[in-house]
């Protein structure tokens, strides 16, 4: 197994630096400070010896990228971090939220917004972050489209991305009901009925979403379960597949970069 590279010395002020080893003495690996210095490396080594995770990490992180890679290529990662932020804040909101349609849902949201320490901030991050995530997805999709990065062999990654877009829309739709105020209620009524206008299957789809033929006692908890359990799991799994394919296939060069071959390899006129 190849040795990990040595970390550079910590930037300590000269007074705090350990004295250099004297000739003929122990070479710094012994003693408490030496053990503390190498503890991190030892732990990483211990785990890596048993899992070989470093190979996968190197494969994922240290890839060759084409010349001309620019800030537009960060939009996908930005979308993923928006999702992670939504997941984090969502977990904390779920600690307070109560999917109770007879007033408890609205009251729990009011409590988070007005009474919980930093509750307004966390809820605001979740609420505005959802818009940010949708905007970033479309920018990322536009980058992929205009750079031609959806072409062979990356078609499957485009398909996965479209599924991720639809799942994100599902998140937006189901999350919109949860505050359970007038806007949430009527927006969901209208949204479910738009689903119902699909011919043949539409009526059954809207019944499935509502959990019955009318807005009922379980509609809110249904939306809550879809919003926080079903779709986030699917999104996380598909982001994994999306990233795997990015690492496997590499990224594309921007369309304005010209392929440059070395002069001796150029085909000269015969």
């Amino acid at each position: 197994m190849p040795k990990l590279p040595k970390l550079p010395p910590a930037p300590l002020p000269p007074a705090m630096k350990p004295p250099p080893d004297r000739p003929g003495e122990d070479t710094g690996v012994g003693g408490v400070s030496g053990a503390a210095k190498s503890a991190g490396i030892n732990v990483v080594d211990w785990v890596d010896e048993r899992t070989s995770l470093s190979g996968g990490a190197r494969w994922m992180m240290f890839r060759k990228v084409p010349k001309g890679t620019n800030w537009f290529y960060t939009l996908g990662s930005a979308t993923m971090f928006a999702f992670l932020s939504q997941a984090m804040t969502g977990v904390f909101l779920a600690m307070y939220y109560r999917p109770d349609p007879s007033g408890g849902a609205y009251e729990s949201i009011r409590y988070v917004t007005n009474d919980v320490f930093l509750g307004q901030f966390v809820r605001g991050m979740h609420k505005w972050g959802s818009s940010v995530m949708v905007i970033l997805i479309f920018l990322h999709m536009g980058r992929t489209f205009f750079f031609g990065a959806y072409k062979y062999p990356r078609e499957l990654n485009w398909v996965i991305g479209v599924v991720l877009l639809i799942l994100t829309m599902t998140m937006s739709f189901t999350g919109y009901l949860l505050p359970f105020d007038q806007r949430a209620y009527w927006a969901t009524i209208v949204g479910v009925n738009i689903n119902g206008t699909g011919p043949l299957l539409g009526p059954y789809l809207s019944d499935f979403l509502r959990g019955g033929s009318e807005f009922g006692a379980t509609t809110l908890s249904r939306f809550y379960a879809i919003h926080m359990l079903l779709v986030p799991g699917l999104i996380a799994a598909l982001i994994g597949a999306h990233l795997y394919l990015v690492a496997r296939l590499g990224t594309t060069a921007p369309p304005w970069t010209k392929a440059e071959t070395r002069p001796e390899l150029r085909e000269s006129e015969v």
Partner: protein
Amino acid sequence: MSDKHDKHKSKYTLDRGMPGAFEGETITRRRLMNVGGQTAGIVATASIILPALGFAVGPIFKSTPHRWETVGTESMFTDLNYVPVVLTLTPNIGEAGKTTVYVRKFNAAIDTDPYDKNSPYIAISSRCAHLGCPVRWVDAAERFICPCHGGVYDLLGRRVGGPPVRPLDRFYTRVVGEYVQLGPRFSVNSQLRHFSPRDPGQPLDGIGQYMYPSRPGAQI
């Protein structure tokens, strides 16, 4: 290929020359384990997936019991104008389970449609037939008007403007003693013919009544 069956007509694996065959076997042990293990896996997976799926889609096929709710006495209503009453569609979930219904007495001069002649009261649902927003009866205009996308309906709930695809839904009515009661919802097409309740946005004229079938959860 024609002699394939002649060559492999024996039921014993040994006679058929299969690798790993034993005398007296009709199926190799590897094949038996493959088929058996995969069948057990399928049965085990299905026994988890199918109940979960049924649990999730079950409410679609559950028919809700018909409820009759008293909304007032006969003296409250006239045959000339609508009186808004609040009807509970889903009990025990507070305001979210309630809806407004506009009720007036049956008026032989207006309600000339033969389908209406047996109903003592006309109860018009406030749920817009476009996408389900709440319409309001505007007295001065003698119209039902929807705030969301501008649907307009006349005195009988028939569409006169905007995006709605059919008239406003109605409720069955009956009189018990002196009390007026409202029963299940039904939908009507532009000729005011009765249909089992459909969701908003689903037309009931022409091909529409076949494109948007009635569901088991909403029958009358």
